């Protein structure tokens, strides 16, 4: 659905995007992460044929972004970084205007506008002037605009950046539904929890190049090592640590807990618990210590 090959963009004296190769399938969400100025927005703009790639190629929804720009735009819904709404218009007029530009017939665009705004809790505001909308409401309206023509490909540049937790939840749920419909979605965000929740795959981009990619789990495993687990005991640890070290890699311990890593928890954990039980140790809890994507991100972005 989206496929890029060595996509590159050079501004006067700045290489903003440097041979990015990506592939996103229908029903898949790719999160594009990276520090400010990494080239995320520039990449997205090349995918909608707004900026011409300096080198490389890309095809979106089966159309080449350079040769069939118009078709590409017809099949992509895009939430731009700056929403660029017309503040003197009412929400309804705005959506009607964009609906017309996308060639949707009048009755249908009114119906779609109502259905989508209802879903994001914006229906009541539809007849108010956009100038009166809050920041988050504006972002929702821009998102509705992106969905208006029912595009098979979605490019969302920071879709929840201005929203309150409840609205952000609504939007995330909507994105999951859209993925469920078999749409192909690229999402840029600075919210790593969001990326972890939504993304099937993640690409981290730094100074225009992709420096890490994979599923959230793969990335963690690769960059942070095997999962970290923690056992808490009923009593003192004492000599247990040495015994456990034969089976797993000890990370740290306190007077009644031990943290360890193991590449295959499903195999080692049952053995460990049996062993501990056999020794008469009371295991109170055994849990995975969540390692945040944030750590992965910081590690990738900061390494030279």
């Amino acid at each position: 659905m989206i496929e890029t090959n060595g996509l590159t963009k050079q501004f006067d004296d700045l290489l903003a995007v440097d041979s990015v190769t990506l592939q996103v399938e229908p029903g898949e969400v790719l999160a594009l992460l990276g520090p400010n100025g990494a080239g995320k927005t520039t990449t997205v703009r090349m995918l909608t044929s707004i900026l011409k790639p300096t080198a490389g190629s890309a095809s979106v929804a089966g159309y080449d972004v350079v040769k069939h720009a118009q078709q590409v735009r017809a099949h992509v819904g895009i939430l731009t970084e700056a929403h660029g709404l017309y503040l003197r218009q009412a929400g309804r007029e705005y959506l009607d205007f964009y609906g017309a530009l996308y060639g949707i017939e009048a009755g249908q665009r009114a119906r779609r506008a109502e259905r989508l705004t209802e879903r994001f809790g914006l229906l009541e505001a539809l007849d108010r002037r956009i100038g009166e909308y809050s920041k988050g409401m504006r972002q929702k309206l821009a998102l509705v605009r992106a969905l208006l023509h029912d595009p098979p490909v979605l490019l969302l540049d920071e879709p929840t950046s201005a929203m309150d937790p409840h609205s952000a939840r609504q939007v995330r749920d909507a994105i999951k539904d859209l993925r469920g419909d078999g749409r192909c979605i690229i999402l840029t965000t600075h919210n790593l929890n969001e990326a972890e929740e939504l993304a099937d795959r993640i690409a981290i981009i730094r100074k225009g190049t992709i420096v890490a990619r994979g599923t959230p789990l793969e990335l963690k495993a690769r960059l942070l090592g095997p999962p970290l687990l923690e056992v808490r005991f009923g009593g003192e640890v004492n000599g247990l640590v040495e015994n456990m070290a034969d089976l797993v890699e000890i990370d740290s311990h306190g007077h009644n807990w031990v943290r360890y890593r193991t590449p295959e928890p499903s195999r080692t954990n049952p053995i460990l618990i049996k062993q501990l039980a056999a020794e008469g140790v009371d295991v109170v809890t055994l849990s995975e210590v969540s390692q945040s994507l944030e750590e992965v991100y910081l590690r990738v972005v900061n390494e030279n």
Partner: protein
Amino acid sequence: MQTMLTPTSIEETRSPFVRWLLLTRWNLARALIITRREVTDMLRDWRILAPIFILTVVFPFIANWGAGRIVNYVEQFEAAIIGERLIPFLLLVVGFFPISFSLIIALESFAGEKERRSLEPLLDTPLTDLQLYIGKILASVVPPLAASALGITVYLVGVFISVDYRPPLILLVQVFSLTAMQAILMVAGAVVVSSQATSVRAANLLASFIIIPVAFLIQLEAFIMFLAAYSVLWWVLLGIVVITVVLLRMGVRSFNREELLGRDIDELDLYKGMRRLGAMIVAKRDDPAQRRSPWAWYRDEVLAQVPRLWMPALLTLVSMGISLVVGIQYAEQFPIPEEMVAVEDWEEQFPTLLGEAGLTGVGGVVRVVFQNARAILIGGGLGMFTLGIGMVLVAMLPFGIIGFVFAQVSTLGIDPSLLYAALIPHSIIEIPAILLASAAFIRLGASVIAPPPDKTIGQGWMVALADTIRLSVGLVLPLFIIAAVIEVFITPQIVLSQAAGL
């Protein structure tokens, strides 16, 4: 989903003409979606609406009242002609005031959308660049033009009632076509200006490149109308059409997605601009292997320009020739009476005259060079606002005068060989220098029309500016100095010895 792209039914139409018609209608329909939104938006903005209303309805009333009073007043003195000329002139003014808003609306529509970043979502739609461009042009032109038509109607109804004036149909056609073309001209200019600016404020500053020439144009039209030389207005109209077409073409070129967004962080940085210009003038090769000797540099960067300037140079030469002929014809039409020209004992007075004019010694040379340079700079400056046309006019002027003087002198029976002696020696150097300088400045003024394919309008202009400066300093100025030395030190000797021989 197909409806948003060019319908296949159009592409499959056999006859090219029918296809063209269908395509135009399709493009227009798409463009009108934009136009409708912008016009609606405008109608909600009282800052634009109120002045248009005043200029459309209130001003024609005042104009009509004033015209009535003056017509009645001058009739007492049987000077009805003033009234007759005044009414058509006010017609032009009443028509022009509302369309002056088209410039403001266009700057707002093009630079404003860019500044508020609402352009990007538009560019993401399947709208073509052309459809968007047409839609915006129409939004800027149509409402002011409607206001203008309304104003003209109000005014004409008024003068019809008060002084029973009925305009000739042809005048109405003229005024309306002039008004409409000027509106399009300003809007087309505004698009070009907006493409170079990142904010409405910057665009407004650059808009003086439009306002100043249009102000001159209106004055010219007013003058023509007072002379009642109405047929000349057709030529003016033709000129406006040509320039508008050029500007529209430039606009379409600069109005593409890449350039509209590509420049959104590009600010006017004077210091950086000057440094870049300086580097371009020096034209040093970075690669040490390509370094050149001073002579090779001079040959490549200065002399090599000369043959490339043949077209503007030819244009200047032809214009000069025409101007010379016109000057001669004028002299034949308006001969100066003989007694006004004191030809007695001028040989004695000649050196004193030269001294009074400051045309002696090194100071004289400096003065002559300075005058020439000033004329070129004024012409070049005017040329910048007028796509080079100002430069042509300035280059023409002295030749008209020369032709006039020559013809006068020969009708007076003075031997023209004296004038030849006075003019030819330094002209041999000076005229080619003027030709070169004019050609370079014309190229500079016109460089914005068609920048090289890989450059933006601004970059193309910078290249032409650097070339022009290099040529002016490296070749034109030395030639001017040589010519001035001849004029100040040698010409007087020749003239005097020639005169003595008579």
